[in-house]
Every structure is written in structure tokens, then in C-alpha cells.
């Protein structure tokens, strides 16, 4: 009996913090989303008006599209991370050094990364365009001011930023696979590619699923690097849902509408997470070594 009480006592602080810092704000956001409020003065209840406005708000859908693109892009880049991890985990020379190199961006703050890439992309003095002009390209792309490429110019640093994080996860999972399995496969004459595809990947399917969910959620709520590098511009060409929400709430003093966008984002993330889990829940049988 006392056990239960002790357990309750021990979990209470964490639970309180979680409630106050996460769940209460979520409820408040949902509440503000039903209001017409400038964040400063008095509130007026408008019901679902913010949400109907949201459905016909072109800029919102544009930013949602950008967020989804980022999510697809991030999931796509997981393949790259996985390939790198497979190579690193197969005991190539210098694997440890490379693991550390990939990890470096993880240690930098987003703002520092943004500053670094701003210098890389600088239209005239940037490393990128200096290089391009030196190899004879007359008018190199204006990475951050050309509305047709700015989004992808921003995706690249994001991919670079998270490489270390996912590679560590994959690497650890791959290292956990007993060596006997690989040896047995080799004796049976399997090629390295077959080993990777038929043995290793199925064994880390659970981890892969988690990383897909993480990448999608992370992309949908991504904000900081974009905010520093382009501020969603030019003319909204790199606006994502979170940066749009921020602008509504803090720049145009449309706190109610901004909260509605925020709450919509939360619901969207929950739905997407659920769908991913459903889609990948087919082979939940535990692998027996």
C-alpha cells in the first residue's frame, strides 16, 4: 500500500511541472484560439471564427505547404543518415573520427548555425558564391533572396544540423545487433548490401520508426533557424507554420488568431504522428535473436 503512495509522491513533482509547463499552456492556447484578442487589451469570444479564417488564409496554407515539404525532405534525408550509419557501423577506418565530425553541428545552437550559413550564402562574399564565381559561373544564385530556391537553401543547413543526432541513434542501434548474425550471413555468402537490407534494417525497424516520427514532428514545428536566416521571407517564400504563428501573435498583435494557428499545428502533429504509427504498426512482433 505504502508503495503506491511513495510512487505517487515521487512522480508528483515531475507531473506538476509537466502540467504547469505543458498541459496548462496547451489548454490556454486552445482557449485563446477562440478569442479575438490582440494579446494586450480585452478579449472577445468569437467561437470558431479564427479557424474559419484560417481555412481561407492563403498565407497559412502556403506556410503549411512549406512545413510539409520540410517534413518530406527530412524523412528523405533519414535515408542518407542511415547509409552513413551503416558505413560507420561496419568498422571502417576512422569511423570514430567521422562520428565526432557529424556530431559537431548538434553542439552548436541554431542561431550560431544560422549565422554560419548566412555567411556561406552571402550573395557576394559568401563561400558558396565565391567558389561558384571562381569556377566561372557568372551570376551565381542569390540563395536567400531568390524566392524559388530560398526554401531549399534553408533545408540544407537543417539537414546538416540534425545529421549527428540521427546518426548517433542509428549507429547505436546497429552496434547493438549481435555480430554472430552478420558472421553467419557472411558464411552463407550474403553480400554486404544483402546483409544491410535483409538483416540489419529489419532489426532496427523500431528505431527507424521512431526517427521518422521525430523527423516529421520536428519539421512541422521547426522555427528557429528560419527565423534568423530569412525571417520567413522574401515575401513569405520561406514561411513555415511556426514562423507564421509567431508573426501573427507577436508582430501583428493577432494573438487569438496566432493561438488558433498554434492549436491547429498541435492537432495536425498529433494526427500525423498517429497516422505514421498506424502505417508502420504492421510488424510489431519482437525480433528474436
Amino acid at each position, binding site marked *: 500500500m505504502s508503495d503506491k503512495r511513495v510512487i505517487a509522491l515521487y512522480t508528483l513533482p515531475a507531473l506538476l511541472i509537466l502540467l504547469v509547463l505543458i498541459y496548462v499552456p496547451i489548454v490556454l492556447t486552445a482557449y485563446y484560439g477562440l478569442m479575438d484578442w490582440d*494579446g*494586450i487589451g480585452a478579449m472577445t469570444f468569437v467561437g470558431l471564427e479564427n479557424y474559419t479564417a484560417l481555412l481561407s488564409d492563403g498565407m497559412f496554407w502556403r506556410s503549411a505547404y512549406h512545413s510539409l515539404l520540410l517534413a518530406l525532405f527530412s524523412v528523405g534525408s533519414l535515408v542518407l543518415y542511415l547509409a552513413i550509419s551503416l558505413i560507420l557501423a561496419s568498422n571502417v577506418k576512422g569511423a570514430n573520427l567521422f562520428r565526432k565530425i557529424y556530431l559537431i553541428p548538434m553542439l552548436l545552437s541554431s542561431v550560431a548555425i544560422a549565422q554560419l550559413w548566412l555567411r556561406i550564402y552571402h550573395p*557576394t562574399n559568401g563561400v558558396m558564391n565565391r567558389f561558384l564565381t571562381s569556377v566561372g559561373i557568372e551570376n551565381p544564385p542569390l540563395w536567400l533572396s531568390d524566392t524559388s530556391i530560398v526554401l531549399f537553401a534553408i533545408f540544407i543547413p537543417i539537414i546538416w544540423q540534425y545529421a549527428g543526432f540521427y546518426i548517433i541513434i542509428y549507429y547505436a542501434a546497429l552496434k547493438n545487433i549481435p555480430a554472430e548474425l552478420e558472421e553467419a550471413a557472411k558464411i552463407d555468402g550474403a553480400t554486404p548490401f544483402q546483409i544491410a537490407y535483409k538483416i540489419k534494417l529489419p532489426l532496427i525497424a523500431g528505431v527507424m520508426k521512431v526517427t521518422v516520427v521525430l523527423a516529421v514532428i520536428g519539421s512541422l514545428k521547426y522555427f528557429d533557424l528560419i527565423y534568423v536566416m530569412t525571417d520567413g521571407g522574401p515575401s513569405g517564400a520561406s514561411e513555415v507554420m511556426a514562423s507564421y504563428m509567431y508573426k501573427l501573435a507577436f508582430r501583428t498583435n493577432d494573438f487569438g488568431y496566432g493561438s488558433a494557428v498554434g492549436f491547429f499545428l498541435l492537432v495536425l502533429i498529433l494526427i500525423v504522428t498517429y497516422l505514421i504509427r498506424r502505417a508502420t504498426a504492421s510488424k510489431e512482433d519482437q525480433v528474436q535473436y
Partner: protein
Amino acid sequence: MKKKALIPALTLSAVTLLAACGGGGNNEAPADDAAASANEPAQEDVTIDFMHLWPAGSSPDHHRIVTDIISEFEEMHPHVTVELEVLENEQYKNKLQVVSSSNQLPDVGMTWAAGFLEPYVNGELFAPLDDVLEDGFRDDFVAGTLEAYSINDQTYALPLELNIAPVFYNTAIFEEHGVSVPETYDDFLNTIDTLVEAGVTPIALGNRDRWTGSLWYMYLADRIGGADALNSAIDRSGSFNDERLIAAAEGIQEMVEHDAFIPGFNGLSDQEAKAEFMNGNAAMYLIGSWDLPNYTTNEEVPQEFRDSIDFFKFPEVEGGEGDINGWVGGPGVGLFVAENSDVKEESKEFVAYFTEEWGKRSVEDAGVIPGTQVNTDEVDLPDLFISVLDELNNASSITLFADVQMSSSVAETHLNMIQSLFGEAVTPEEFAEEHENALQADE
């Protein structure tokens, strides 16, 4: 050298020369003196929470003056302690909004004029300060600056800064390529063409920040349509579909066609653009007079560069209604007192004292043109400063920054449209139409 230049009275629409009262010579200062507080019975200790946006790192001079004024004020009023909280500009704005929504504003803080101020006043969060302005204190301010912080004839903040935006240019680059200061817009385009042919970037512009591009549009609007075209479009007595304003938008795109602006300007911040100008990679740079220290007193900037910088007035457009002495500018931050502060009286006293002292020191010590009148006889200033103050004397009009005039949601549309206009993503007609839609939605 000292020149007799008194900053004149100035209204945001028309300027008349007044004999200034020799700034700060007002004996009826609202701050009470130490003797008065000594006669009173021991007062309860109070704390004034003061939030400002000049960190020691990025604005060392401002920060130092603030700290000095505070310690003097605390000395005069032993029972008062001023608690500081300092944030960078953007964080400051966010924090102000967040604390205001939970009604926890600092007792004294900084606010911007017009559009920024409005929701705070409507929410009854700022205290009217007209009682502070009695006893002639009102007359210490450059006429028209207080109005920018007034709503329904009540003043809600005391201005600390006043700026106009000249076109700074690098005389060395101009001489090297044999171009002179353009008098008309056509000259200006020729100047731009000459520089482009010589392989020089004519204008540094960091349009990621958007208000920077807005300055260019505002000047063209002023020179083509006169001082009222843009103002009346914003206050709805006119319209953005006014052909003069459309012509201004066309002028911007014409400049873009002529490669007037630095490559990639829509992706560059103002800081990055400034760096190009400061490194001599661009010939011209349009920015507020708050940048004057960089070209005069800032020891971190090479002397040679500082000596080569001058400014010119935005050229006239032939056939336009504007006057070459019309400026774009306006007051920057001002001090407010929170309506529900529990130390309102002390806070008001502090704000009055601070504003007055700031006016005496800010030009000399930090290169800030204050909202109060400066007696140029008493201050020792670089020539470039004196020239700007003289221009302020002769200004025929000062148009308040467009994004400051507008409500925040219209301002956001305006700034986005500016970026699109410069990036040639919209036509001048679409530019006008979007403004009209935003203004109508806002009514």
C-alpha cells in the same frame, strides 16, 4: 567648431522656426530636489522596475548614460531604488507584449510611437503623462514629437529620440568615378548607371528587415506626391491606388531594373548591408540619423572612412509635388509609465527627470538626437551632426515612418509588399491593391 544651430519646432506636417529656449534652461524642472525630500518625514522605500533595450554590449554609450542618470536619480531620492531589466530590441518587444497580457508591466519602460502604442493605450495599460508636462516642460520638446505618442489628446510617452533619414554616400567612391550628388531623380538614375558600369554597387540595402526598403518607397512617394499623398492613403482620406503612389512603386522597380541595389538585397539584413557600405563596397546607404556616430565619432570605424562620408537629400522628381526639404523620419523610443504601477508618482518623476537629463547628454555622449530641443551652442558636435541638425531646422515636412503610422497588421502587409515590390514579385498596381485590402480589413 561650434555653430549656432537651434533645433526648431517641428510638426510632422509643417515646420516653423521658433526661437528655442536654450534647452534644459527650464528652472521649473518637474524633478523635485534633494532638499524637498529631506524635509519630508522618512519615506517608505520604493522600487521602480525599469525595462529598457540598450544592452551594455550592443549600445554601450546609451547604456552608460542610462546607468548614470539612474544613479543620480537614486542619490536625489534616497528612498527610491531603480531595478533594471535590459533586453535586445526584438526580445524587448516580445516580452513587453507577454507581460502586458498578464498585466505585469514594469513601472517604467520604453515604447514606440503611433501604431505600436495604440493597443497598449486602448488596453489602458499606459498612464497619461500630461501632468508631467505642465510647468512648461512641454515646451522643451521639439514640437510635433509628443504628438506621435499622443492618442485622443493625451500623451502616453515622452520621446527620447528623433531621427530623419538622409542618404549617406561615400565621397571617395563618388570622386573616383566622377559622379556628383544627384539633384533630380533622373540624375540619380544616371549616377546609378555610371557606378554600375564601373562595377561598383551603387546602394547598400538590407531588405530582409523590410522597413529599410520602405524608406526608399516613402521618399519616392514624398517626392512624387508631396508630403500628404502617403499619409492620406494611410489615414484613409486618400488611397494607395493614387496614381502618384503607384508611380512611386514604379520608381522603385525602375531602380531595381537599373541594378541600383546590392545583389541579394532581399536576403540581406540591414546589418549585413551596413557592413558592405562600411567596407567601401557600396557607394550609398539610406538610413536613419541614428547611424551618424558610425560616420563621426565611432573610434572603431577607421578615421579615413569616417572622413569620406557625407549625406545628401533624396533628389527631387521632375514634375513631382514634393519638396527636397521633405524628410522621412520620426521619433524612436519614448518612456511610458504603467497605469497600474504601485509607484506611479515616483515613476512619473523618474520619467520626467530621465527625459530631461537624457536630452542634455544624449547627443554628445551617444550621438542620439533627443526629442527635447538641443542648444547647439552648448554642445560640441562633429560637422556632419551639425549639418543634420541644420537640415532638421529647414525641413519642410517630416513624414513618420510608414510602418510606424500603420496598425501592426497593416504594417505587416506593407512590409511584406515592400519586399515583393523590390523583388519584382508584384506589380505596382498589385502592391497598391494589397495595401487597400489590408487597410479595409483593418477598419
